[in-house]
């Protein structure tokens, strides 16, 4: 869930300009891969697991972002399963939801909230 309440640690990922506008990039945190999205048209940042639950591809960061009826989503580059960037839920199918993470931007850096 995207709440900042149970964040124990803010991981400093990279500079804002390292992320493409209206697109994503993958962040390495220990053994984890986290997809971070700079949804600049909405002025919002999102993060979720990089692995797509469909065929377990490490791919979501390379997916295309967009919205359906105002809900921000990312479509996996492999077979276009789309996941809500808010709830993590699979919008156009029955895949498991992905884990989402809170994101904050401070002094030009992007941080991912980990619990």
């Amino acid at each position, binding site marked *: 869930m995207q709440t900042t309440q149970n964040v124990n640690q803010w991981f400093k*990922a*990279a500079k804002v300009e*390292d*992320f*493409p*506008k*209206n*697109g994503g*990039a*993958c*962040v*390495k945190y220990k*053994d984890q*891969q986290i997809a*971070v999205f700079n*949804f600049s*048209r*909405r002025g919002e940042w999102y993060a979720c697991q990089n692995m797509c639950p469909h*065929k*377990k*591809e*490490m*791919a979501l960061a*390379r*997916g*295309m*972002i*967009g*919205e*359906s*009826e*105002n809900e*921000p*989503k990312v*479509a996996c*580059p*492999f077979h*276009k399963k*789309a996941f809500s960037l808010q709830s993590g839920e699979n919008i156009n199918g029955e895949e498991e939801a992905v884990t989402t993470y809170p994101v904050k931007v401070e002094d030009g850096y992007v941080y991912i909230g980990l619990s």
Partner: protein
Amino acid sequence: MTSNTVSDSQKKHIVIVGNGMVGYKFCEKLLKKNDKGDFRITIFGEETRPAYDRVHLSAYFEDSSEEDLQLAPIEWYKENGIELHTGELITELDRDNQTVTSQKGRTVSYDKLILATGSSAFVPPIPGVEKKGVFVYRTIEDLDAITNYAKKASKAAVIGGGLLGLEAAKSAMDLGLETSVIEFAPRLMPRQLDEIGAQALKSALEDFNLEILLNKNTKQIAGNGTPEYLDFADGERLDADMVIISAGIRPRDELAKKADLEVGERGGIVVNDRMETNDPNIFAIGESALHRGMIYGLVAPGYEMADVVVENLTGGDEEFTEFDMSTKLKLVGVDVASFGDAFGETEENSKKVIIDNKAKGVYKRINISEDGKRLLGGMLVGDADDYNMLLQIAKNGFSLPPDPIDLIIGERDGETGAGQKVYDFPDDSIICSCESVTKGEICSLIEEEGMEDIDSIKGCTKAGTGCSGCVPMLDDLITQSMKARGKEVRKVICEHFDYTRQELYDLIKVKEIHTYDELLDEHGTGNGCEKCKPAVASLLASAFNEHVLKDRDTIQDTNDRFLANIQRGGTYSVIPRVPGGEITPDKLITIGQLAKKYGLYTKITGGQRINMMGARVDQLPNIWEELIEAGFESGHAYGKALRTVKSCVGSTWCRYGLHESVSFAIEIEERYRGLRAPHKLKGGVSGCVRECAEAQAKDFGIIATEEGWNLFVCGNGGTNPQHARLLATDLDEETLIKYLDRFLMFYIKTAEHLNRTSTWLNKMDGGLDYLKKVVVEDSLGIGEELEQEMQQLINVYACEWTEVVNDPELRKRFTHFVNSEDADPSLKFKDYREQKVPAPAGWEKDSK
């Protein structure tokens, strides 16, 4: 989830024997009616996997994924509170105590028992059927065994020329075996086709290199342990080292028989119209049920039976009476359909109307009532596009055109024959026969719920999810119902742009809009999605041919975003352009050395060039840097763009060649390289009519004649192969290029996103004649404009990989992580025939 209004012990226990297609469907239907939680459901299946789609079993050969065939994953049963036991054969049925027992010794008691045991393949008692290398064709296991055995076999014989036999033959052919079908009767599919129809099917199948032997009674399958040849009663002999038997089905009634339920003389569990056996607590459905003396070997009647039982268990009173056995199939590559009274034998003096077009391999027959007012039924071979329409006309008793042959003349350029519109059908006519969805239900979703796309209708009604034969009718219903309400029917791109592709193209050109954001701000709403972004990206590229990554990398489809095709595991492929398929030894050496250096897998593609696969995203710019240094450029294998212009060797070498096809192919490929279009574009140039470049299977094909070149357009291979059509003949090279410029530009400007040229032409009012007028006669007076627009695109062409390689900012994006130089640690490879292929964790099980 079920609510807890009924305690577990009060719940009726429904036990189903057989987790096949119908057993599964029964669960699905019962769940829908089980909101009060009156029932507890247990299902036993003998097979080790949960129910799968047997109808599309052959597809298993093609993409070898069990998952795609599964009707529902194991979790589905769990989530819905269904107790599923796979790999458990029920061997005992004790009717007095109302229990069943499995071979593992598990006993459960039931309130109501459903027998959905299906059938097994019938194996005639021919000597030799017990040999290793003799198979039946019914389960995934059968297919696995066949696939394995086929590796060491070379010639297959399929015994049985019915529907399943032909399907098995197709699979044997796909496995690379020379294949013969052996039929006992004097013709193929005797129950569905008449003599001429069967003959038409036979010649069409022979064109696919399938041998058909009729009137053949197999005496023995001979060989030492495994098959070597077959002997027939007429003394002839056929070599075959693999045999598939498909001689009919046998209902699985052994459990019923053992428990003294009434079974038919030739098999099948006898049921009444309520699908009850002679024990009122036991029902039989699907292929194991014998209803009014009939076993239904199709899935749709089985679903209907499931429905009847569910109704009857939940307080309703339903009867299964008769079922329409109309079907449409694709056998080996030939459409075959039969519907209603196919042989015209239900009414006296019925008349038949026949088209027997041997040149095209098409046979159509319809049977008309004596007064010429009603369509009774018919059969179609070679072209079954009219099937759904005809079926509806027959079922609903619609009036016929004055000359009924108009019903089957089919599509002439620009006009359709059938004349009847789905929209005029009565509301209760069935549109989707697999899921019994009526026109009324669909129209009310469109009209009252405002559903205007096929996917939502599929989701709501399941229509179109079975054999998908009705999908074109769904599309027509949406279009026509919207038109009827005065709603303009425009194929708008998505919720963010209320414009068609063509309108957006015009806006972009006229207002000179160069970025997606600008277009969205000025002419759209919201923040875009994965539908409009790549569509607009493609439009921008077609309009100005600017670099696809500069300021627009994140609106590109994934392959365009990294200028390479993404593959399983997340690596990419590298395909440099090899115009016309001509390549120097030095360039071959470069490719070999590069592939070795980066550990890439190499393969010759179907497009006459070389693919290097398995490159990591961070390696792509380095690989391309070296390729470009050696004189290569991007092949656009990743883009909706011009791919290849294939060529044959032509008059330089070939003794039949009329002109230099290689030079011409190279000239054309270089002219249009990098051209982005609504879908990918492919071309071919052949030096004579022998057509070794397969130009007639391309979006544009050029074939040498004594006088010059013939130009064909709008062909493709792929999902729905279509031959290219002749646009103009005996052209000189200059005129040909002029026509090509016009043709391609006209396509780019007017086609919908992701429509190949063939689809575009199929939808075009006026068809080929119209296209000829526009391109050859310049009837719209836009010829020169189209040529100029094309010339502008050609003038600004630049290799997009060269630009990336030379631009540090663009190069930066080619990394897996933003905060680390590391490569994706989840990438794994394994050795495979002296090369390396991906072996990521996620798909191990289906990558065998």
